[in-house]
């Protein structure tokens, strides 16, 4: 069955989880045979770092011992001197490969092997080629890109692997202002870590009751959960080598198993979707970006071609 070459990666937990819960989540991931690589670390908000910092070495070692490729992610937005220092320290001292998520990490990593995360804007093959020549070995493309762009980029750039965001709420925006804290009557500087109360984000609905967005600290995510299952053959055909699952507050080992089962042809995409709906209920799926339309849209898999 085609598709075996697609490797499954797990992106960083976007939400603020209790430190021990975060550790235990990864320990379970270490035992999940379907996940090939894991990128760890706090990407969204530097104020959260102390929650996971005490556990990160143990988690990284456990994952590596289980045979996973481990990488550490840099933060998506670096504005304060403290954040700039942390990024520099990560680049200088990380025992694991670093995934760059902003231009400062990208610059500092130049000339050594590293990964590119979805928060660095790679919209064309020329950019991907340049990043590869500077040491990028794997590039996770931003979720906004349609398949047409993914195909063009991979076709134009050699020397790096390409990863596509295949499961999870979409990271849509990041701000200096914390809407999550604001929603609970706090400011960012005195946020009291209220985002920890919402381990799967805080729902934002329209005034007419339409489910729309999800707050995650300073990050705004989609309400929908991106699911690219029926699209796996097309992604592989385009040259994608890795698919990224972004942790939600559900059993991600089970999610990985579903993706592996569809990839390996043990179940079809429809059954995979049905199983995902049971694992991660109450959240509508979307795949619109991949199909070049509104990100929130769900385009059902094309019905089987009926021979003429």
């Amino acid at each position: 069955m085609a598709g075996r070459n697609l490797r499954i990666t797990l992106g960083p937990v976007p939400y603020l989880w209790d430190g021990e819960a975060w550790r235990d989540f990864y320990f379970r991931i270490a035992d999940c045979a379907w996940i090939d690589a894991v990128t760890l670390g706090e990407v969204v908000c530097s104020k959260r770092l102390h929650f996971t910092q005490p556990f990160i070495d143990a988690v990284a070692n456990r994952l590596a011992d289980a045979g996973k490729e481990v990488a550490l992610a840099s933060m998506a937005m670096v504005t304060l001197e403290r954040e700039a220092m942390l990024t520099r320290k990560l680049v200088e001292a990380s025992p694991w490969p670093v995934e760059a998520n902003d231009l400062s990490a990208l610059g500092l990593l130049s000339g050594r092997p590293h990964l590119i995360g979805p928060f660095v804007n790679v919209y064309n093959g020329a950019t991907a080629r340049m990043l590869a020549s500077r040491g990028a070995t794997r590039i996770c493309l931003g979720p906004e890109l349609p398949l047409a762009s993914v195909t063009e980029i991979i076709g134009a750039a050699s020397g790096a692997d390409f990863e596509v965001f295949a499961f999870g709420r979409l990271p849509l925006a990041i701000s200096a202002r914390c809407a999550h804290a604001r929603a609970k009557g706090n400011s960012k500087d005195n946020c009291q870590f209220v985002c920890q109360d919402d381990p799967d984000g805080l729902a934002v609905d329209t005034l007419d009751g339409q489910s729309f967005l999800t707050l995650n600290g300073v990050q705004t995510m989609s309400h929908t959960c991106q699911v690219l299952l029926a699209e796996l053959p097309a992604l592989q055909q385009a040259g994608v080598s890795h698919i990224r699952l972004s942790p939600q507050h559900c059993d991600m080992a089970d999610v990985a198993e579903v993706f592996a089962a569809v990839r390996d042809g043990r179940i079809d995409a429809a059954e995979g979707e049905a199983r995902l709906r049971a694992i991660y209920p109450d959240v509508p799926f979307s795949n619109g970006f991949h199909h070049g339309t509104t990100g929130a849209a769900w385009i059902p898999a094309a019905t089987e071609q009926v021979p003429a």
Partner: protein
Amino acid sequence: MELICPAGTPAAYREAVDAGADAVYCGFRDETNARNFPGLNFTREELAASIAYGKARNVQTYVALNTFMRAGAERLWYKAADDAVLLGADALIVADLALMAYISETHPRQRLHVSVQASASNADAINFLVQTFGAKRLVLPRVLTVADIAALAPKVACELEVFAFGGLCVMAEGRCSLSSYATGLSPNMQGVCSPASHVRYREDGEEMVSELGGYTINRFGADEPAGYPTLCKGRFHIADDGGYAFEDPVSLDVMEHLDALRAAGVTALKIEGRQRGKAYVAEVVSRLRQALAATPEQRPALLAHLRRLSEGQRTTAGAYEKKWR
């Protein structure tokens, strides 16, 4: 400090020059710039004539090529850069790394400005762009306080330009897919945010409802000041509370911090608003030009009137003040 002014049409360009701009920025009529709106922007001929009008009055022209090159269609952006250079643009404002590389290699003497859309928000990021592409100036994202900017300026090897007045992006620029999530069209790719093609206004009793891509963005009472139907300035329900989740309909005004920005070493102040009419451009440019020469005590009176032209008829200093976060 230089005053950098927007122009969506040749008429607005002339108004900006006549009202006291040091430089005017504009874009071509296509997706190579982030104000790719119907009926807006410049043909090659219009840009040539405008540049000539500016040069004759000692005013510079910057050409915004500040979207990300669509994979497979890079020629459109390269050609736009070639043409802008040929037509005599004083600077190109660029966001895409590969387009910066192209310009620095193909037109090494062309002055390169890094767009706000590149999202370089710290010294390491900025110096990376300066060293790699020879960027001469960087437009800072609206995520830093005035104090942050003052701390940053001595550490970077290029000029800094900051947004001083006009539309306010609540989200970090160049990293926002809210528009395409609802409409399929984004600032980074198509050069539009909350595009008119997907906007609908309807009356519901006394209220005016604005919708984007079928999502309700706001409901305005009978005489309530309105704003653009952008997602980040909509009213939403969070838990059971209705309100502005991210920001009110409001525009940016940091003229109160003019002296601090000057002391911080900021080279240029930018006015947002290529999508606005020439009357707005003339009014804002002339008021800000006067404010630059005025004493701090005189400034509020000069600027108060501008609030009436602003989104929601209100202004904020946004991220430039720490309390905004």
